[in-house]
């Protein structure tokens, strides 16, 4: 009898909780976010770290703190909600006040600005060279793979004097991507004097030191409070080389649940909400006082790599058939609620000067065409495979269900395998899946980098870890190499043709189905201006103002 009563009581409590949580809406009163000039940002727990050259962590969060680079992409007003977007086809001075390119397009001479670090040390050429020494020397650094083949050795860097140094490239075709790389997240400049004072035999580049000491650069903010998994406070750096930021305090709060983040933004208890779901973003379009971060040409893609190192996608015809079996419109409308779009099958930036988008197969949902290709491939129907998704990405799971449903008519029998994020990362890197879904973006937006980042090969010719489709194609490699070696300015019609030759092979062979471009998942209170869209998906608070 006692157990029965306990059960009934528990059931009533559970139901009450469910009803209360389901019926709870946003509070009617305006919250107190950003009082005293501070901006409150709510974000999911992304295991923040400030230590750079320590795996993939820390790159984006550090952008406002350590993250000053030699040059950067200028911002232009999008004309929507006061949002600024990077002009990725151009560069402007940052820590380097000027630079010259040699006649052979292989050597760049940089002249440094009179910048002072967060620790009060002046910027010198030694800082620049030591920053790259750390990137090459720290065993956990990812920069060598990302900056290859443009920057491969410290020997490329030469100090002229304290404010002048040169970088020499192997070939002139590397110049455009070199500029793209040094303007982005893997090229921050560190305060070498400060870090060298804290190296140890166990930590020769002070990587571990920087996990708890984040102010080791020349960025617009300093970290004045950090509780891992809870909150981080950034305070404006009055010594910043481009002038002190207008917003004096940024408070990041970890809020794991996306529904809660949305409610905090709506109520005014938060000024910015990151990583909202597409349906929540769509609901904000009709909510007063909020605005969406909208990019003119977002670089974030939902993509479906089809691994060519095993059946069934070791056959090109089967991959192409799968590209015809994806319900693109349903994913864009029902999963992303219009927060995504698809211009074509292509991948490179179609708004780049000189871009040539001719000759691509226009993959649309066409089950009859898919079956025709499968018949040509000589495979029996249905073609069975496992589609892996990360348990940490609910949008990908929803897209997977759409693909599974609609691909049946195209002759595919898909089992969705949802795995924890760590297992997903391992499978992705080790190429153990047959196919998977992910949302990813290329930060450096030059044709050479974009086409290389997901198709790179190891020195022995095997697919590198980030070669998502485990794809090796000699014609593609040759076309890329030809464009790399002959094109110095990627934004001319000649360059467009050269890169088109490579992109055409990539798109038509379909090692990765580029499903749609995804808009940023950030929303903010409409009294904030100067919110930036960047290719690294982070907000440059140095540009923002409030009120």
């Amino acid at each position: 009898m006692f157990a029965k009563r306990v059960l009934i009581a528990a059931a009533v409590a559970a139901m009450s909780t469910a009803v209360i949580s389901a019926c709870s809406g946003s509070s009617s009163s305006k919250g107190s976010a950003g009082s005293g000039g501070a901006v409150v940002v709510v974000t999911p727990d992304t295991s923040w770290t400030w230590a750079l050259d320590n795996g993939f962590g820390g790159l984006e969060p550090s952008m406002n703190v350590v993250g000053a680079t030699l040059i950067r992409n200028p911002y232009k007003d999008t004309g929507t909600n006061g949002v600024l977007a990077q002009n990725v086809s151009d560069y402007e001075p940052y820590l380097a006040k000027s630079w010259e390119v040699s006649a052979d397009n292989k050597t760049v001479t940089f002249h440094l600005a009179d910048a002072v670090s967060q620790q009060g040390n002046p910027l010198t050429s030694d800082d620049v060279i030591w920053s790259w020494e750390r990137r090459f020397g720290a065993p956990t650094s990812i920069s060598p793979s990302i900056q290859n083949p443009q920057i491969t050795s410290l020997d490329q860097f030469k100090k002229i004097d304290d404010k002048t140094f040169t970088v020499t490239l192997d070939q002139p075709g590397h110049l455009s991507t070199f500029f793209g790389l040094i303007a982005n997240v893997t090229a921050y400049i560190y305060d070498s004097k400060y870090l060298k004072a804290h190296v140890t035999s166990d930590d020769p580049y002070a990587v571990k030191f920087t996990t708890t000491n984040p102010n080791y650069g020349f960025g617009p903010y300093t970290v004045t409070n950090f509780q891992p998994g809870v909150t981080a406070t950034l305070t404006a750096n009055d010594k910043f080389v481009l002038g002190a930021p207008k917003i004096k305090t940024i408070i990041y709060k970890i809020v794991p649940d996306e529904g809660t983040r949305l409610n905090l933004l709506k109520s005014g208890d938060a000024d910015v909400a990151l990583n909202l779901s597409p349906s929540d973003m769509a609901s904000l379009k009709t909510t007063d006082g909020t605005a969406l971060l909208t990019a003119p040409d977002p670089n974030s893609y939902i993509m479906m790599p089809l691994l060519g190192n095993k059946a069934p996608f070791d056959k090109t015809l089967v991959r192409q058939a799968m590209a015809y079996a994806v319900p693109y419109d349903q994913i864009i409308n029902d999963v992303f609620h219009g927060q995504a779009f698809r211009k074509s099958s292509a991948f490179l930036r179609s708004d780049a000067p000189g871009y040539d988008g001719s000759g691509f197969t226009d993959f649309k949902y066409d089950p009859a065409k898919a079956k025709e290709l499968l018949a040509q491939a000589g495979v029996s129907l249905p073609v069975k495979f496992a589609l892996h998704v990360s348990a940490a990405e609910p949008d990908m799971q929803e897209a997977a269900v759409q693909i599974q449903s609609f691909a049946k008519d195209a002759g595919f029998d898909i089992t969705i395998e949802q795995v924890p994020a760590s297992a997903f990362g391992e499978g992705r890197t080790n190429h153990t899946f047959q196919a998977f879904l992910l949302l990813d973006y290329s930060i450096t937006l030059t044709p050479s980098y974009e086409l290389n980042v997901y198709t790179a090969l190891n020195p022995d010719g095997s697919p590198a870890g980030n070669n998502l489709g485990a794809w090796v194609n000699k014609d593609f490699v040759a076309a890329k190499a030809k464009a790399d070696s002959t094109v110095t300015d990627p934004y001319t019609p000649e360059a467009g043709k050269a890169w088109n030759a490579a992109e055409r092979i990539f798109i038509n062979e379909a090692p990765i189905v580029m499903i749609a471009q995804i808009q940023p998942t950030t929303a903010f209170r409409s009294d904030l201006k100067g919110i930036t869209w960047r290719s690294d998906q982070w907000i440059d608070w140095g540009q923002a103002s409030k009120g």
Partner: protein
Amino acid sequence: MTATISMSKEKLTAPKRKVSLRRILATAWSWAPVYPVAVVFLIAVIGPWIVPLSPIDVAGPTNQSPGGAFHFGTDSTGLDVFSRTIAAARNDILIATLTSAIATTAGILLGLLIGMNESRRGLLGWVARFLVRVLDLLQAVPAVVIALALVAVVGTSVISLTVAMAIILTPNQARMVRTEVLKVRTDAYIDAARMAGERGFALTLRHVLPNASWPALENASLVFGAAILITATLGFLGVGLHPPTPEWGSMISTGASDAAVGRWWSFVFPAIALVIAVASFAMAGQRLFKRRAG
């Protein structure tokens, strides 16, 4: 003079009881706690065949509120919540029934083995004492952690989830039986059976087993409920059955975030179903396995 006593030759039989409506209703009422579980089982069996829409295919627009063609609305993927809530009963009930049966059977056998032999010398005694330590270890680690580890190794399926939960839930059943065995084996009727010549396996099977297994049988319904909740928890953690296989836990997991912004239906309906299933099995178990006093 003699006297003659004559007696009528009517047979002496017990008077027939009248079967009255009142008696029928009283009997039916006494079994009332079992009816909900019968309904749940019925839904589990026929549910996937009677649902109006496919529970695993996109049925319509996403996030539709209840009404019209979608009695319980649609979830964030466009799947019909009503069809999935009904169809999920089969997966959850199947896993829970198998888990309860395996855990209870294994628990009774282990409890008997341990209880009858742990104080002995010799091989059987060592084995029994070793098994006690194994049970201690399994109970020391949180159930969900063990389930996660097992699922990570063997993958997710109805069988792997059933095996994982049977491993987690057997120790408690075994402990209950062991405790009862320690009491029962000193009872007078056991001594009497021994004096009558019964030994070993026959003694255990005929006299100890029927009297020591009641705690595990009474507890079986709670094991059932626990299995459903652990399955739901694993689904909530994202390591349940393959999506979009209907299962209450994973539905509650994906619906929880929607509920926070007012889209309550994909969370509330599977949660109600889960509560009804667990509560009804608990009540039925109490009714079926209640020991008669004296």
